[in-house]
């Protein structure tokens, strides 16, 4: 770009691309610390591009806005977690419910992303950042040495300059991909999830899920509901609605003839789920990608004049279904790194921004992702067992065990053991267990 163009360009201390949880965290922290921040979001408002209904993990947000509980739009705090393995007609569940979760500062909440993100972004603006909506960043601007010095948008006019650009553009961040900062998404490391919101009066939700006041329940399910594909289903209770969804690895959708919507319909009609939704009215339907490649899929996270945070950096823990907390944490630490360098008047060079990656190593983000680095491959490679064979075997075993039909218990035990052996063989089962334990460690 020409010098005159540069002179006429608006200037900021930092530019944040995207106003999801990671971008909001980054922009908020930098603005609060006095930097002149510009945040650019292509959606009509923060959260408008997001899939509704999610779980908010309080800890990550508390580290950014300690008093968030007083003002953020929260739906219910989670007091009960149900984990189900399902075959076509049954589910076997582990339920954990505790009154301890009815604490003064609850640990997890259900939220509606459109409302929550909007609130978070209002705090970003209150902190002094300039926020542009309905504006898409199309390109990074670089100087002759290749250092990123600003962005261009789809609005007419000069580029906007800043010594550092924080890319918080979400899972399919095209700016980073097009600029060659990271590779395109691969179909075997990204899941496609579809989700619906179902309206139900709050009394019905409370009666149906055995809840009082703002208590909430989360169900996570795996099994034949994904028709042999790698994926999970989920159901969250909101104040006056239920979020229900299901997601699978994109490559599996391509290989099978299944459609995401078909899976969701079948899940909703499963005999264990259907009564929970009875009488509800669909409010919204949406689909979104989730990066699930884990540790091995994490791209280069920094360079001269740029950083990557949130889903764009593949920061999702698919095993525990955590994403927004990793997004907020990476956004916060990126911001703290930029604030530190700005205060010391040091350059936003790759060498200096490397402090971001080093600090991440010390947090749960990298520790958890490293712990589970083998899981994506394991589940994907063994999807027939983990999402078909075992859930079916478990259901059959439960049925054999609980049905009282004159057969003695010893014979039942043997039958159950035989069913597992015949389905997977001793070696298969030992192998699966071994691999699972190794991947989990």
């Amino acid at each position, binding site marked *: 770009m020409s010098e005159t163009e540069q002179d006429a360009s*608006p200037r900021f201390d930092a530019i944040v691309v995207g106003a999801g949880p990671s971008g909001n965290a980054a922009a908020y922290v930098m603005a609060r610390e006095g930097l002149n921040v510009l945040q650019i979001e292509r959606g009509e408002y923060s959260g408008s591009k997001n899939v509704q209904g999610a779980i908010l993990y309080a800890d990550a947000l508390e580290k950014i806005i300690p008093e968030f509980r007083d003002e953020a739009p929260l739906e219910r705090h989670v007091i009960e977690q149900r984990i189900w393995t399902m075959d076509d007609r049954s589910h076997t569940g582990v339920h954990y419910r505790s009154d301890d979760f009815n604490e003064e500062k609850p640990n997890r909440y259900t939220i509606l992303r459109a409302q929550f993100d909007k609130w978070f972004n209002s705090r970003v603006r209150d902190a002094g950042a300039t926020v542009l*909506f*309905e504006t898409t960043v199309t390109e990074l601007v670089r100087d002759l040495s290749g250092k990123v010095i600003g962005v261009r948008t789809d609005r*007419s006019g000069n580029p906007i300059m800043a010594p550092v650009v924080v890319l918080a553009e979400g899972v399919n961040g095209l700016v980073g991909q097009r600029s060659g900062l990271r590779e395109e998404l691969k179909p075997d490391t990204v899941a496609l999830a579809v989700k619906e919101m179902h309206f139900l009066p709050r009394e019905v939700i409370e009666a149906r899920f055995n809840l009082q006041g703002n208590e909430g329940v989360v169900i996570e399910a795996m099994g034949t509901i994904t028709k042999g594909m790698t994926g999970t289903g989920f159901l969250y209770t909101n104040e006056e609605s239920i979020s229900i969804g299901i997601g699978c690895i994109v490559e599996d959708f391509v290989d099978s003839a299944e459609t995401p919507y078909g899976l969701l319909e079948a899940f909703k009609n499963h005999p264990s789920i259907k009564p929970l939704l009875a009488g509800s009215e669909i409010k919204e339907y949406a689909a979104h990608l989730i990066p699930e490649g884990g540790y091995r899929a994490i791209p280069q996270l920094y360079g001269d004049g740029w950083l990557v945070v949130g889903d764009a950096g593949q920061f999702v823990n698919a095993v525990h279904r955590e994403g927004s907390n990793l997004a907020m944490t990476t956004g916060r630490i990126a911001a703290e790194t930029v604030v530190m360098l700005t205060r010391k008047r040091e350059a936003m060079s790759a060498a200096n921004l490397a402090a971001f990656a080093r600090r991440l190593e010390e947090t749960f983000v990298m520790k958890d992702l490293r712990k589970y680095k083998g899981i994506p491959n394991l589940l994907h490679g063994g999807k027939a067992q983990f999402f078909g064979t075992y859930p079916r075997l478990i259901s059959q075993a439960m049925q054999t065990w609980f049905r009282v039909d004159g057969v003695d218990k010893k014979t039942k035990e043997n039958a159950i053991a035989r069913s597992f052996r015949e389905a997977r063989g001793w070696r298969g089962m030992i192998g699966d267990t071994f691999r699972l334990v190794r991947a989990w460690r």
Partner: protein
Amino acid sequence: MTGSKPLHSVVCIKQVPDSAQIRVHPVTNTIMRQGVPTIINPFDLFALEEALRLRDRLGGSVTVLCMGPMTAEDSLRKALTFGADRAVLLSDRYFAGSDTLATSYALSMALEQIGRTFGTPDVVFTGKQTIDGDTAQVGPGIARRLGYNQLTYISKIRELDPAAGVLTVERRAEGGTQVLETRLPVLITMLEGTNEMRRGGIDTALAAAKAEVTIWNAAAVGIEDLTRCGLRGSPTIVKKVFAPSARSEKAVMIPVEGTPYESARAVIEAMFARLPDVEAQLLETAAQSAY
């Protein structure tokens, strides 16, 4: 107006629930406004674009005015992003529940205050109507109170001669287009589909993001008699709100396969099977025209 004073247009915009996304509560039958996204009343955008075009041609400034809750600031900021120069939000709990009478009263008081603060408006714009009220009464109500000439259902501004203070417009009327001329100051209600809203450039968007929206309550615009505002100042009574009952006839799916000819044939046969009269009539006509 005199030739030297820059042209000042004010566009009244309303924040409305996006009617495409409104639901009626299945149990209580009330409109569920909660969680429904809001938009600028689509008709008002045509008014805003027309005002911006006037400014492009003649200079001057465009003020946007909105009466509504504090959240309506979002809509005003959006109007600034399109290119308006300043925004005024008229907000007070006393305005809640206003009908068209109370609304046009409050807005006309705000317009007078805008005149005192930023210069007398030469042209006041409103959309033809709102999508959530459909009355089309507020614009004329404002004109009457301010003593402005009024031009309703305008499709185009042909010409504005600032020196002479004369405005020429096209007005859609039954059977054709009227060309009307009037003297400033004037209130215009704009028809839909008459222009296309522009997209503000990066400088406009940045300025809009940083702009302060002026917020006035009833007292700030000089309203002393609060009985003329809100529910108390609104003689209109909504007797009943109901969801129209679903139409009894259902869409019918006609499964077809094979060549286009076979598909067309299957569709026609299925239609005739349901509407034998039509088939008979068509056959008769065909038979007649054959001779």
